């Protein structure tokens, strides 16, 4: 049974359409990430699931109950806010007790829940402190603790890590993942950070302009993005898009990309569906990690590799890997190289393009072909 079902949800603020027909379903115990740029409507959707925003049209089901007109407190949910929203005048213990007291949970059960959760999150030594005396990471834990004591049917997270510094954010991300494995509750997690979405979620809903662009497992979203928006949003540095043309290459279909000399280079498609119409304009999408320095050994290892010679414009070493900006025709592309095989500035490098992992998009609709 699905523990959260969102059916054709619309939300308008006056004449402004914020959400335009959202469909999402979360199975029992799933971790769903809602990801998208700011203004895409993901936080609004979460607030609607929580009952903090009204539904203009459509249905929200939690478990087997339609909750459109159910008050937030009766939806059996818990939420962690970006600002943590800890009650400033209460101690950590009182913060965690507040929800149980409001619901008249029996005293022994309250004590038990505090004990269980504070041990789980390792915040036992903080129980008598006020939120003002806690560090950012500790507040984050307490905010999660407040959600956990209630043992709800659904957890909602609204960008919970975006107020933390980079290092702590990575730590807490791991913790949230561990926590989810241990607790096994259905979780809806809003973030603008695609790395968070990729690492945490069992399924990702990529949102843009009030619509779900793609709703699938992280690896599928990453390697088979349904359109150029998803392809560009997921992954950093993002996917390279090169205007190209489909051509016939000895009975097989190939992509012709502009070359330095003004002509074009044919890159044979690996899964080479011959049926594709030659002459058709396409957008050729390739991720930075699917570009290599071409060599015979590489070709032997990866039969999908095809060569492409391009000039190197800029090299940016980051230590673990080296990014290089290169030029295909008028388009700049980024490649991600092993520092040992990194290109040099000004070099004309022959790239090996891994055609097994490329995407083709329709230029007008921007959809995956």
């Amino acid at each position, binding site marked *: 049974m699905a523990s959260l079902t969102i059916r054709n949800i619309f939300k308008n603020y006056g004449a402004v359409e914020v959400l335009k027909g959202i469909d999402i379903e979360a199975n029992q115990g799933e971790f769903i990430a809602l990801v998208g740029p700011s203004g895409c409507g993901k936080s609004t959707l979460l607030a609607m699931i*929580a*009952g*903090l925003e009204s539904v203009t049209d459509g249905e929200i089901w939690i478990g087997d109950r339609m909750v459109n007109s159910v*008050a*937030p*407190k009766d*939806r059996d*949910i*818990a*939420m962690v*806010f*970006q*600002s943590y*929203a800890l*009650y*400033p*005048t*209460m101690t950590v213990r009182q913060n965690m007790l*507040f*929800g149980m007291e*409001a*619901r008249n949970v029996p005293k022994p059960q309250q004590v038990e829940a505090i004990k269980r959760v504070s041990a789980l999150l390792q915040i036992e030594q903080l129980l008598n402190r006020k939120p003002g005396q806690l560090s950012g990471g500790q507040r984050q834990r307490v905010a999660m603790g*407040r959600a956990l004591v*209630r043992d709800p049917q659904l957890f909602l997270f609204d960008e919970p890590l975006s107020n933390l510094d980079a290092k702590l954010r990575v730590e807490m991300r791991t913790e949230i993942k561990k926590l989810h494995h241990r607790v096994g509750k259905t979780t809806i997690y809003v973030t603008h950070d695609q790395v968070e979405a990729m690492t945490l979620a069992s399924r990702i809903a990529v949102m843009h302009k009030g619509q779900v662009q793609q709703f699938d497992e992280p690896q599928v979203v990453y390697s088979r993005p349904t359109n150029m928006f998803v392809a560009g949003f997921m992954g950093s540095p993002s996917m390279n898009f090169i205007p190209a043309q489909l051509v016939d290459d000895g009975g097989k279909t190939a992509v012709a990309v502009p070359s330095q000399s003004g002509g074009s280079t044919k890159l044979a498609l690996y899964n080479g569906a011959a049926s594709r119409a030659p002459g058709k304009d396409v957008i050729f999408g390739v991720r930075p990690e699917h570009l290599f320095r071409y060599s015979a050994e590489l070709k032997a290892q990866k039969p999908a590799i095809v060569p492409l010679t391009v000039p190197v414009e800029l090299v940016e070493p980051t230590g673990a890997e080296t990014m290089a900006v290169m030029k295909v025709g008028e388009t700049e592309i980024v490649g991600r190289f092993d520092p040992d095989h990194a290109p040099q500035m000004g070099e004309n490098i022959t790239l090996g393009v891994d055609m097994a992992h490329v995407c083709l998009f329709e230029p007008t609709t921007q959809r995956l072909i």
Partner: protein
Amino acid sequence: MAFDAEAASARRRWVTSRVIIYGLLIVFSLIYILPLVVVILNSFRDLPEINHNGLIAWPQSFSLDYWYQAWDTYCVGGTCAGVKGNFFNSLTMTIPATIISTALGAMNGYILSKWKFRGSDALFACVMLGVFVPGQLSLMPWSWLLGRIHLSNSVYGLILIHCVQGLSFTTLFCRNFYVNIPDDLVKAARIDGAGFWRIFWKIIVPISPPILIVTVIWQFTGIWNEFLFGVIFTTGNQQPITAALVALGAGGLSVHAYNVSSAAVLIGALPPLLVYFLGGKYFVRGLTQGAIK
């Protein structure tokens, strides 16, 4: 040597400027404090001496008797029981009116900032009008209303007036304070299962002391010192002390007892002075401080 000379002249200039600044400050504070000193001194001098040496003079005699008279026996408007009755009238008026108007202001502020509804901003704008409309404009309507509900010439009528007249200010203070409290707190509490009242008592009120102190001080001193409504809607033993002081000043035929008047004025001024002394620190702090982050 040149260096030393320069340092010495810089020091001289510094001293001179300090002397000028402090001198001016002392002069101005004397100007401000002088009336109070005169009144205090006169409240202990006997009447012949005042009449002989003038109001502003160093005391030649000393007696606490005039304070006693002002409090207990002096004749105001035909009754000879001092101002103690009026003093208690003021207390019975000011304390409930302060508490009620502050409580209502806090509720209004809470609703207008955290439970906005269609038209709540327009409603707030209307409440704001009360801040700008001078009190005397509402004299006629009040007179009509007090007559209708039989609260003319009664301290309870004044309580009602001050609760209503004060509402605009208390609402403004509290609403502006609560607007700065993050909405997420209320949302979190709603998801936690708390309702309107539990959120108010358990979350909003505990955050509120800075603004409540400001509001209480503002209301207490404002209501205590107000005398227009007191003079117009009450007479005799129903009057608050400020109104009684007016009657005292109006004198009548008898010789003006400056010493007793001084003592009475001081009695009337004591509670607000006390409130400022005890709460002034919080008042300034509360006015300048935003809500908690």
